[in-house]
């Protein structure tokens, strides 16, 4: 059976006009290697640059009409 790329355990999903959804066992670190505080398993990473809680998404991409 072909491996199903839609069922990857660790993945970044590029949401159209929105954030990068990070699901799985990947650490988010600062440039110094310290872990970025994380309160949930699956997180949304800002892609539009306008979030007030970077590196996480706060939904602002919708307010600024971000397209990707």
């Amino acid at each position: 059976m072909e491996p199903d790329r839609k069922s990857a355990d660790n993945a970044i999903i590029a949401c159209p006009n929105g954030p990068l959804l990070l699901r799985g066992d990947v650490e988010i670190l600062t440039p110094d290697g310290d872990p970025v505080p994380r309160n949930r398993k699956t997180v949304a990473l800002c892609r539009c640059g306008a979030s007030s809680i970077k590196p996480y998404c706060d939904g602002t991409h919708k307010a600024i009409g971000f397209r990707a």
Partner: protein
Amino acid sequence: MKTPDPRGPLSSALLDALGSAPAAAPGLPALAEAAGTALEQTADIFRDEDVQLALFCLYELHYTGLDGVDAGWEWHPGLLAVRVRLEQAYEAALRRLVRLPEPPQATSAAVADALFTLTGNDDGPSVSRFVAASATREQLQEFLVHRSIYQLKEADPHSWAIPRLTGRAKAALVEIQADEYGGGRAHRMHSTLFAGTLRGVGLEDSYGAYIDHIPAVTLAALNMMSLFGLNRRLRGAIVGHLAAFEMTSSIPNRFYARGVRRLGYGDDVALYFDEHVEADAVHEQIAARDMAGGLAEASPELVPDILFGTAACLAMDAMVGGHQLAAWQNGTSSLRLPLPEPVGSATI
């Protein structure tokens, strides 16, 4: 939860009936008659205090129950028959209330697009902007009281849908709900965070403490969720409802957090709102594409009801928000009863 005070003939007949043992059920004929009369006479079911409270109590039997009411009433056929009559009238009113766009193709991408468009075009009254810029401490308290029933059982009405979904939609719903319930940490449950917010502004944090203060229109929004959640045939609508919740949450919660801090409250009160800014930016993506989109691909016939649930959520949010803002702009309370003075706030 505590048993509410009745608000008219129907809720009186209901609470009378529930006061007896379900085996005998002497009050059921009077209740059935009161339900028929109430539905005949209601001018606006969304703002009918008697009908909405009765429906709320009937649904509450499936959640925490009502103090002093025999738990055996939950599946009593005669009581369910009354609930179905009220539900049919209420669902018909909800379907008349909303105008649906043309249904998209039953693909995840098309459904997500349709939901983002529907929620993005929502121009309902903005309680969050009012709270951010202008609300008084008393108005913030009222806003929290309106929210207190749902937020102290946050996510529960949508959890009814879990065994009714399969595959991608189910995995998505469970991923969202696990986060709502704290990811295994009771102190991170959203209902627990909300209880902290209530305490922080001097309000009671027990479930249902303010039921008698809460007007019909707010109960109507709660009853809509239970209607969608408890009826398997409406699983499309409960999924659409949750998607709308998640897709209209991050930015308003940022405004609520701003208002809370403007009024001088600290992180303990703001934490609930801060949490939703981040959480719901995640949830909205999962809800639109995997949950609603996944359900649409698995069951294309449910696409219209997914849109119905989303549109109904937006419409009821607008109705409840409009009620609060209208009261505040008139310098009156949006609640049925004045809130008690917070402990320790008496003037010296």
